[in-house]
């Protein structure tokens, strides 16, 4: 064997010597060609920018960025804020004028409640103001645990989790569950913090018409058809419906029982934002679930802020432990933010106490809402938007002038007129360019239990006079 191979080799060498020169040269060229083919790039990069250093310097020199921020005109409607001196409670001093407050979301009048203040002060003396840390790193105070416990008991859910900022609550909760590739069905009227939460989640978002269950069902059906085409993907695509209890932008209520039917029919989870309805709806202020008599366990997650009815600061989520506990490691606004100052938690606990001791307060609030709703009917040129039991009612122009700026100015004159007559109102503010579905401009009238019938009638009368004067 070995000798045979050797023989072949010898023969090859011999052939090499015998071959004519032109043959060898040709073979040599071919070999070089092959090597070149192997090592050269077979395609030419179309867009290779072989810029010289000098050209690069010129480009850098040439580039002019836009200004960091565009200029804001001096008379921008929201540049110059109203200045409130003193507490923003029932009687409020706006720009030096004492008014009756029809603008702050202090529904239960707990903002300057003496009991709440006393508890806050006691807590302040024990803990100081700040927590100096996130919940994980010595920022969990016994008061936080107590508040979470109390909120869970109040709402009759397994667990609650508190955030230090109302806005961040639902905006952190949504992306904790819904990830890229998941699906969220959301009402068009959803508030801004929901929109930001959805954006952060990077999920696929489908908007349905406000409170239109048929439209929602249409979307769900479409998705069902889609799922049948790709069942493997459907098995891992989480679906959520995100709705508000009482919509802050429209003043109406979500049709929760219908939503629950759809939930079980199409196997979608429901997240409910209750910032406006918590501490307002239901006989005990438990919100929209109590209002409709729905089992709260059927809602996967309820989120609300503590800045309206509880008149403190922060927000919370509640629901089953299976769901809520996940946020303790995945809720960005929970993990990466300093925790709620203990005195604000103590104030919220006391406010909960007051709500529990005296559920009558919710009936009173509802009566007031009805009263305001009725008193505002029939104002020429303005229409009342919102349910009779909602404490934040919108007054919109019956006929828009066609220009949003103009409408805003018209409403502003009405607000200013009322402010001169000691009724503090405000327009609902939005970021026009950022809102997904920008609500029409409106004056928001907020009802609180502290407003007397006489004050309500006076406010309604002022608005009526103002509207007649401005909209003539």
């Amino acid at each position, binding site marked *: 064997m070995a000798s045979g191979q050797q023989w072949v080799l010898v023969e090859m060498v011999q052939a090499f010597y015998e071959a004519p020169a032109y043959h060898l040269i040709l073979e040599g060229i071919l070999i070089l060609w092959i090597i070149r083919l192997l090592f050269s790039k077979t395609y030419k990069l179309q867009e290779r920018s072989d810029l010289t250093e000098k050209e690069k310097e010129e480009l850098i020199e040439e580039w002019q960025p836009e200004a960091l921020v565009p200029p804001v005109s001096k008379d921008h409607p929201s540049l110059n804020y109203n200045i409130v001196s003193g507490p*923003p409670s029932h009687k409020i001093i706006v720009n030096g004028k004492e008014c009756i407050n029809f603008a702050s979301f202090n529904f239960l009048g707990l903002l300057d409640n003496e009991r709440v203040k006393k508890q*806050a002060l006691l807590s*302040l003396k024990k803990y100081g103001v*700040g927590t100096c840390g996130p919940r994980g*790193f010595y920022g969990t105070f016994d008061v936080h645990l107590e508040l979470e416990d109390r909120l869970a008991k109040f709402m009759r859910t397994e667990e609650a989790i508190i955030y230090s900022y109302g806005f961040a609550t639902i905006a952190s909760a949504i992306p904790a569950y819904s990830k890229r590739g998941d699906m969220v069905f959301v009402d068009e009227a959803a508030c801004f913090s929901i929109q930001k939460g959805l954006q952060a989640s990077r999920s696929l978002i489908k908007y349905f018409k406000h409170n239109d269950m048929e439209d929602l069902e249409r979307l769900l059906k479409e998705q069902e058809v889609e799922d049948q085409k790709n069942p493997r993907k459907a098995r891992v695509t989480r679906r959520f419906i995100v709705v508000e209890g009482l919509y802050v932008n429209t003043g109406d209520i979500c049709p929760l029982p219908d939503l629950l039917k759809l939930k079980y029919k199409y196997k979608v989870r429901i997240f409910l934002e209750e910032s406006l309805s918590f501490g307002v709806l239901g006989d005990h202020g438990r919100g929209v679930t109590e209002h409709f008599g729905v089992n709260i366990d059927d809602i996967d997650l309820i989120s609300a802020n503590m800045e309206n009815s509880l008149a403190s600061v922060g927000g919370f989520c509640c629901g089953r432990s299976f769901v809520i*506990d996940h946020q303790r490691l995945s809720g960005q606004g929970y*993990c990466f933010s300093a925790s709620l*100052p203990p005195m604000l938690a103590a104030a919220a606990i006391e406010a909960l106490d007051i709500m529990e001791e005296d559920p009558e307060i919710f009936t009173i609030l509802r009566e007031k809402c009805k009263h305001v709703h009725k008193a505002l009917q029939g104002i020429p040129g303005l229409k009342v938007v919102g349910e009779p039991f909602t404490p934040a009612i919108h007054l919109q122009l019956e006929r828009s002038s066609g220009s949003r700026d103009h409408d805003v100015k018209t409403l502003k004159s009405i607000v200013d007129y009322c402010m001169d007559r000691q009724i503090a109102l405000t327009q609902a503010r939005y970021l026009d360019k950022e809102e997904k579905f920008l609500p029409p401009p409106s004056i928001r009238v907020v009802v609180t239990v502290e407003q007397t019938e006489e004050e309500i009638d006076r406010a309604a009368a002022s608005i009526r006079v103002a509207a007649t004067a401005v909209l003539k």
Partner: protein
Amino acid sequence: MTESSANKPANGDACHRASGAKKPGRNGYVKSPHLIQQKHCHAKERSHHVITCNGGLYSRPFDESFEETPMLVAVLTYMGYGILTLFGYLRDFLREWKIEKCHIAREREEQRDFVPLYQDFENFYTRNLYMRIRDSWNRPICSVPGARMDLVERLSHDYNWTFQHMGKVIKDVINMGSYNYLGFAENSGACLEAAAEATAEYGVGVSSTRQELGNLDKHEELEKLVARFLGVEATMAFGMGFATNSMNIPALAGKGCLILSDELNHASLVLGARLSGSTIRVFKHNNMQSLEKLLRDAIVHGQPRTHRPWKKILIVVEGIYSMEGSIVRLPEVIALKKKYKAYLYLDEAHSIGALGPHGRGVIDYFGLDPRDVDILMGTFTKSFGAAGGYIGGKKELIDYLRTHSHSAVYATSMSPPVVEQIITSMKCIMGEDGTTVGQERIQRLADNTTYFRRKLREMGFIIYGNNDSPVVPVMLYMPAKIGAFSREMLKRNIGVVVVGFPATPIIESRARFCVSAAHTRDMLDVALSAISEVGDLLQLKYSRHRALLTADWSSDDTSYDGIEN
């Protein structure tokens, strides 16, 4: 290969340090294994960094070290995770077959046929690794988070799945974890009185947004004060530090803009950048070459695919990085930003109050002009012992934010007592309360920081970050040592923060100490001797350079006296 970290002769004649390193570190700059005091520094030693060679940018020595992870330790750490993962699978298997009792909260029966809310592997880490040492975090405290705190004792009978509070309190634990840099977390003194007065007068809530009827006179007062403190034209304050970033970056950048972000930026900055819809590119931590390369490429090549020039470029950095203890190379960043006409967003969450001879953050520390930073952001949570955040800058910027910030339009404004706490503590720092208490605290923090860092180095721990940074990460590396360190320290009545994956790279678990002006020398000594003891017990003294170090460390560079005019 020798290179030096950016050092700078103070006013040209003073001596300064150069650090020689055997290897360039993971971040392109030096992980200096030791610091040698040199009498004369030669320019050739400083030639490596593109911009760093103009060490003239720095008004003080810039010592930052990130010692290499010893090879053996790295291997053992990976092995540790490997073993934990194997056992995790084994126990998941046992749970599956109901051999081991399962404590995990379960989905409701009615919703079993829904798409699962969590993918199984998502919680593998939590279930099998985190749960073993869960007692190291979220320890409830029941006192002011000052230099000493009281912890609620927790017991777990089911291996950390649930905790019971037995009503017992662990008293007077030395607090090495809270971000209480200047010691304003107090329940007595001027701040408390002022906050109490504000509570009595205003209540705690506001129930409205800044643009509606939630703009209190207190808020305006605060913003004017902060502007004065920072030396900028105007500022705006927000109710939550996290949201200050995540809700304002979208107002400043948008589609067609480029955000250049440090790889170790805080989650809130990352979220804000993502929400803005801009293109995001990440540069290596505090690495100026990496940043410059990105800047050049961005301007030369423009936007991807369309090749249109970028509308604007925003560089986003932090003052002190809370997990690394490093300080941003601000003079170089500013030089780059000017050269390439980019905008600079500086997050001073940890550095405001904690750095600089006047406590005015990293700008003060380097002796720079605040007008060179376009957007100055910071929080009130840490040094001021309150809550919330601010943004400062030119008047046009703040006017724009007042009209376009998400927070001003949609979020409830700050609680009055919190505002009052900030006002009082800030005035104290500025010396406007007529005392020198603020200045003393700043000096004490600087002294404590140097002392604490020096002692730890001498003991042979690997500590990360800048010499002047009050955030002191001590490397633990191995997963088993995370829990052990925390528990052993608590046994010795010292509360520490330990961090592991995913907050750090997987093998770089660490303990993080936050030095405070409220710590007395005695407290630090007690803490240090406990750390040393536990360090011996757990064999944490990894550093290979301690011998070289002790002798040469003489001058006290952190004292601000020298550079104050």
